[in-house]
């Protein structure tokens, strides 16, 4: 229980990789605020699982594309748990299509959620984190697309590449306060989000994955746990969790 006494916020914590991150941090002893946008039932289910296992949690609704909602969310966490130590910027969406067919709204919503949402949440927790004077952990979920690009994902890849550049810059700003900022770049992880990809896309990818299989959400969550509970001398890093897909 190495995260005993720590409080974590996981954005997009109700489903997919975020759900697994929330459950994993809770198992390690952290009190976990599970953020969701629309799927209240799924967030409630995650909270139920945390509490049934004897952990502490809280469900917090917010549209992370709106700064004011992120501020309110952080305030709700502080009111409930009295502190915040770990932020996992996980919430993300895809609107895949080639640029020739991409509409402005596809670009805007992906950038607003995946990139600006991270800015909003970091900005909202920064002052409370500084005030506590006990360091902190910010972990941003990027993507292999942010490192290598991906056809049909100019919007998603730009946002996820932006996440990496943001991570490195903020790591430089906050280093002296013992707040580490790192990014994780998952490859192909089996979630609801990737389930919807065409079979042909999935089958084409498989031969390029050195480990010969898709990843599991738990395997990303383990990396988040590693960065959250120790790893005090790692900051500004990008950790690829992709089974060798980026090699």
């Amino acid at each position: 229980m190495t995260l005993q006494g720590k409080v974590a916020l996981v954005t997009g914590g109700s489903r997919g990789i975020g759900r697994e991150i929330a459950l994993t941090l809770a198992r390690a002893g952290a009190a976990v605020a599970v953020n969701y946008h629309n799927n209240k039932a799924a967030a409630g289910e995650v909270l139920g699982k945390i509490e049934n296992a004897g952990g502490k949690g809280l469900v917090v609704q917010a549209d992370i594309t709106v700064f004011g909602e992120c501020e309110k969310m952080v305030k709700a966490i502080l009111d409930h748990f009295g502190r915040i130590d770990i932020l996992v910027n996980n919430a993300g969406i895809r609107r895949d299509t080639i640029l020739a067919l991409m509409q402005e709204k596809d670009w805007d919503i992906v950038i607003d959620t995946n990139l600006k949402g991270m800015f909003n949440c970091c900005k909202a927790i920064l002052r409370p984190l500084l005030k506590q004077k006990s360091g902190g952990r910010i972990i941003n979920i990027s993507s292999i697309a942010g490192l290598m690009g991906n056809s049909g994902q100019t919007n998603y890849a730009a946002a996820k590449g932006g996440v990496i550049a943001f991570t490195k810059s903020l790591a430089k700003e906050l280093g002296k306060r013992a707040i580490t900022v790192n990014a994780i770049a998952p490859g192909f992880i089996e979630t609801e989000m990737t389930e919807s990809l065409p079979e042909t896309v999935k089958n084409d990818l498989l031969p390029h994955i050195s480990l010969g299989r898709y990843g599991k959400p738990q395997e990303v969550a383990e990396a988040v746990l590693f960065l959250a509970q120790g790893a005090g001398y790692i900051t500004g890093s990008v950790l690829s969790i992709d089974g060798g897909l980026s090699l």
Partner: protein
Amino acid sequence: MEVLEIVKGLISEQLDIDEEQLEMKTTFEDIDADSLDVVELVMALEEEFNLEIADEEVEKIKTIGDIVSYIEKQIA
């Protein structure tokens, strides 16, 4: 207590600097305080004086005098 005295006290505590080195015209550069140090000082002052200083105002702060006169205007 005078605003200047309170500000000097907070800076000296936060940055571990002798209060006697601090004057109205002292810049944050003089005392090796970076912009995040200024933000932290502003946070402490907001609590002390129960006011809010907008991020745009914080960016303008260069000297201890800038902070003192801003606060004096706000609480007047």
